[in-house]
């Protein structure tokens, strides 16, 4: 498979502490990759290395199949980024800020108005940025990242400081990018709910280690509701379900049915009754994605 971003054994140490440890990130073309992790997990440090702002202690970064070490300029021509807090020149207006980058990127002047329109800053384009609100600065940062229509857009916590309608606008904008321009997007966040609705792929990082990396569907499967049945003899019930070819897990105080639909649940319960088990309780337990994410990162922290 062709990966737009691929890191191998990527590691960054600050003193003894490993901020990023053996990270293997893989992002296929056209995906919106949600890079998730709690505070201090190493997301920003990873992104800094992806952009060549910081040298890895060991391991390598490849973007578009080229090694960052030897092809930095060529690679960065096709990458737009927003790292951590928005960066800007306070003494310049939004337009002038973009103009300063445009001179280096060598793109037509009309792109400035286009991106300002896209992030809805065109009304305040001639105001000095130091007077902007945090959300407006964030939008300017996103505009700057898109100025040269990059093939890869790297956004570090872009919804930081945006109001709810701003978040929705941003989500729509980001979702449209792969479809309209074939862009690949890497977007980091510490909230799963924020990127849940737009990401097609997720990487979860905790303490510098990648602990999950797959499609969002795979992650959602973890989130499906499970049915727990409390029976007089849980272990015997579990065995008899398995013997009958029905999937189940044995918990400490109950049997969990891995049923995919209501009919299967009904069939399992009916079978247990027929076998003469006394059923005390049948309850549904829903796990939200956020819970799964929390559990994932918690386990890692405990271990």
């Amino acid at each position: 498979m062709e990966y737009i971003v691929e890191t191998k054994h990527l590691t960054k140490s600050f003193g003894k502490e490993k901020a990023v440890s053996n990270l293997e990130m893989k992002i296929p073309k056209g995906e919106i990759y949600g890079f998730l992790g709690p505070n201090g997990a190493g997301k920003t440090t990873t992104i800094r290395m992806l952009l060549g702002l910081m040298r890895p202690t060991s391991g390598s970064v490849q973007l578009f199949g080229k090694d960052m070490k030897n092809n930095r300029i060529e690679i960065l021509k096709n990458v737009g980024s927003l790292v951590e807090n928005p960066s800007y020149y306070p003494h310049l207006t939004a337009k002038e800020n973009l103009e300063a980058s445009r001179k280096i990127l060598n793109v037509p002047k009309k792109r400035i108005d286009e991106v300002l329109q896209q992030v809805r800053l065109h009304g305040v384009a001639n105001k000095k940025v130091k007077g902007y609100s945090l959300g407006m600065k964030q939008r300017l940062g996103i505009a700057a990242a898109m100025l040269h229509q990059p093939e890869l857009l790297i956004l570090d916590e872009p919804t930081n400081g945006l109001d709810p309608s701003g978040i929705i606008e941003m989500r729509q904008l980001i979702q449209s990018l792969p479809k309209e321009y074939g862009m690949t997007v890497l977007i980091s966040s510490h909230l799963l709910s924020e990127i849940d609705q737009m990401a097609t792929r997720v990487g979860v990082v905790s303490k510098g280690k990648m602990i999950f990396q797959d499609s969002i569907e795979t992650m959602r499967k973890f989130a499906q509701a499970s049915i727990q049945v409390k029976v007089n003899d849980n272990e015997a019930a579990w065995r008899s379900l398995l013997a009958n070819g029905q999937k189940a897990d044995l918990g400490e105080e109950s049997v969990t049915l891995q049923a995919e639909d209501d009919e299967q649940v009904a069939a399992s319960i009916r079978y247990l009754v027929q076998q003469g088990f006394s059923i005390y309780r049948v309850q549904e337990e829903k796990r939200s994605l956020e819970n799964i994410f929390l559990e994932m990162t918690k386990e890692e922290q405990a271990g």
Partner: protein
Amino acid sequence: MFSVINSEWYKLRKSKVLFLLLIAPLIGLFIGIANSSIEIEGINAWHGKLVMMNFTYAILFLPLISGVLASVICRYEHQEGGWKQLLALPVTRGKVFLSKYLLLILLMLVMQLMYLVSIYLVGMIEGITDPFPMDIVWKSIFGGWVATLPLIALQLWVSIAFKSFAAPFAINVIFTLPTILVINSERFGPYYPWGQPFLMMNIGGSTEDVFFVPWDQILMVVGGSFLLFFIGGYLYFLKKAI
């Protein structure tokens, strides 16, 4: 390369600090007018003026203004994450460093030329009738500029390293103030980089050479400190984690 300089110039131009370039030539002008020079028979009247004007200008203002400009050209990158935005663009760090340096030395050349205008104005106002000593003045103007090149390299280095505006300024002042004492020393004067602008601009030196200072001193002190400061700053910037 040109596009990077162009972008740097754009950011600097909009920061409205270019009036700083006027300060030193204006002060030179006032000093020139305020002090009437003693006229000595047989010596070009311009010389007296030059000696007087050059003293404050070359010892104090030339290195101080260049230091402030170096800080300004880095300040807006330090302020709100400008470095990471700039360096995530397709430019090499080397080009960024070189662009900032070139822009600084160009601005200082402009300041030297404005100072030249000041000198001329003083003469006009005072009604000096002696012929304008063009060759001597050029030596002084151009020599002073060459002597500032290493200082600017160091000032750029320090300005990149420190986020605060005050630290590079303090360092600059610490090295600039002793100049007045050091240049009077036969032994140390010729080797002190901050003293070179004055020595190069001082018209008392030998007139046979291209500059007022012997070549070996220019090469060794100005050239040597330039290489040291420029390469040091350049390598520091290449390695700096952003």
